[in-house]
């Protein structure tokens, strides 16, 4: 591991280097890339102890590729692998056994949930894992800080010469954006598909020029876990209230005019914000520029209604998003680098007017935690959180003031995922706070008749309702390094104490 640099400001670190040179490859005419056995590919490359294998998470909780590849590695007696999987889901629980058996000794990811996240928090690995942002992962790959020996790319559709897309086949997932850097920079690229089409594929997301093998298997995943049904606007009245307030904040900023650009999540409250913003746009006859990030059917509807001129799609969440990406020229697939890498000549988040993000905790300095739960156990990670927050003109956090009994606004977050300097507004059902750095915004909100509170007062309000929580006790061992998008270390996650 290279030396660690501490975070010292969202835009403090400047890159002074060239990109990593990629391995130059060649493929002689007449050679087939298609294989039916993963073992065969392992032997041909060959995959050996200590290598870094990378994977994308576009199949989410329906993914079967990671487990299959690791089972093959285990069977072949390979040890000491570093796994660079862009996000870890409950379906990846077998990873725990592979760690216990020495097959896997390192993990590099942007988001973890489920049993693996819990096991990591309990000290599963001797070394800390690395947690990056979506943009940071692209940066690390390009800058050579995350060298990948072999990228295994689950491909919902592939042709026999390694052109890939995510919009066809029985396990279509939409955009393959998070796999773009892996395909470009890995020494070897292995596509794994359950839908082999004749060459050349009609729609190409990842090109043949970097793909070395195409392995066909019965099924790369379970469609039910890959895309949700229809993503729904929440019906929870508290969530709706928060969403409505957030939309009013956006309107008050003055950004909601022709050319407006927007990012919001797929969660019920985030979608509800889109719902209210859409109403405002329709009422004001406003044509926005683009919506960015994880794309849902709701954003597709907004595109089709003329609320936006383009969708920039790094990840699709439902079948409507998949279908739209396949059919609509104004719905563009972008890679992780274009989406959010801070070290290129400009990524898409820089063009954002407003972004809606969540929080498991936010502190009185506006630092946000989406990495650990209030019990200290890892339950997420930045994903694109700190990327979008850094890029957007206005970053709005929407959250309940209390979740269950727990106050969400605290004096100091357990883990800093996104620094307070890139967070502008916090919207809760009981009040709105504006970062003191943004006195301009505070004034605009006041002018629009929106009551703005001090974040300390919001915190006190939560404590009056729920009581002040006792500090949780953590062990000393560091289980995860939380890397900011520029590669500096913004925080660490400690092991939970055995008492928990």
């Amino acid at each position: 591991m290279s030396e660690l640099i501490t975070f010292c400001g969202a835009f403090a670190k400047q890159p002074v280097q060239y990109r990593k040179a990629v391995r130059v490859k060649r493929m002689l005419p007449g050679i087939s890339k298609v294989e039916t056995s993963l073992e065969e590919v392992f032997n041909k490359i060959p995959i050996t102890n200590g290598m870094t294998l990378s994977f994308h998470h576009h199949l989410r909780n329906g993914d079967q590729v990671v487990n299959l590849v690791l089972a093959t590695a285990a069977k072949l007696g390979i040890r000491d692998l570093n796994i660079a999987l862009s996000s870890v889901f409950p379906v990846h629980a077998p990873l725990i056994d592979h760690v216990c058996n020495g097959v896997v000794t390192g993990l590099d990811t942007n988001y973890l949930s489920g049993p693996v996240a819990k096991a990591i928090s309990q000290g599963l690995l001797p070394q800390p894992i690395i947690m990056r942002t979506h943009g940071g992962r692209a940066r690390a790959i390009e800058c050579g800080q995350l060298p990948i020996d072999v990228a295994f790319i689950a491909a919902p559709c592939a042709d026999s010469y390694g052109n890939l897309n995510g919009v066809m086949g029985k396990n279509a997932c939409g955009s393959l954006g998070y796999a773009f850097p892996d395909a470009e920079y890995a020494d070897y690229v292995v596509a794994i598909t359950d839908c082999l089409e004749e060459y050349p594929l009609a729609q190409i997301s990842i090109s043949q020029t970097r793909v070395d093998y195409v392995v066909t298997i019965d099924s790369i995943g379970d469609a039910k876990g890959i895309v949700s049904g229809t993503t729904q606007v929440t019906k929870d009245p508290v969530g709706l209230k928060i969403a409505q307030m957030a939309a009013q904040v956006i309107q008050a900023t003055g950004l909601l005019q022709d050319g407006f650009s927007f990012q919001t999540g797929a969660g019920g409250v985030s979608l509800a914000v889109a719902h209210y913003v859409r109403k405002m746009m329709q009422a004001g006859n406003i044509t926005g520029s683009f919506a960015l990030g994880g794309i849902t059917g709701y954003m597709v509807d907004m595109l089709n209604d003329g609320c936006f001129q383009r969708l920039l799609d790094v990840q699709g969440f439902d079948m409507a998003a998949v279908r739209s990406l396949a059919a609509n020229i104004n719905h563009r697939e972008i890679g992780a680098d274009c989406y959010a890498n801070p070290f290129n000549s400009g990524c898409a988040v820089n063009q954002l007017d407003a972004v809606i993000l969540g929080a498991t905790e936010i502190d009185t300095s506006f630092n946000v935690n989406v990495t650990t739960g209030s019990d200290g156990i890892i339950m997420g990670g930045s994903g694109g959180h700190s990327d979008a927050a850094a890029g957007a003109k206005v970053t709005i956090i929407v959250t309940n003031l209390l979740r269950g009994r727990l106050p969400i606004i605290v004096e100091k977050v357990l883990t800093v995922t996104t620094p307070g300097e890139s967070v502008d507004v916090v919207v809760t059902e009981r009040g709105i706070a504006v970062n003191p750095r943004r006195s301009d915004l505070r004034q605009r909100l006041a002018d629009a008749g929106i009551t703005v509170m001090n974040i300390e007062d919001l915190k006190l309000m939560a404590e009056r309702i729920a009581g002040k929580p006792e500090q949780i006790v953590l062990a000393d061992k560091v289980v995860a390094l939380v890397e900011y998008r520029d590669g500096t270390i913004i925080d660490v996650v400690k092991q939970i104490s055995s008492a928990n």
Partner: protein
Amino acid sequence: MVNKTAQAGTLESNDIMITVAPARQCSGIVIDLESIVLPQYGQTIRKVILQAVQAYGIANAYIKAIDRGALDYTIRARTEAALQRSGAAKRAFR
């Protein structure tokens, strides 16, 4: 006096399920607490339950509490409902 086992509350979020059961003389008030916010609020929850039980003048009881993030007002109400269902009577009105 807790005469019989009785229960109040649900396992829904923001609620707490309280079960009270008779206990032997001199066993005191035993609270068996399960909570999603145990590290942060375990002590508070025990205190609130204990105060509610003491308001009934009860010296011996076994109490099982399964907490889903209830606020104090809910903990008091559920404890009181369980106690009344078990046949306990409050000493004096506040």
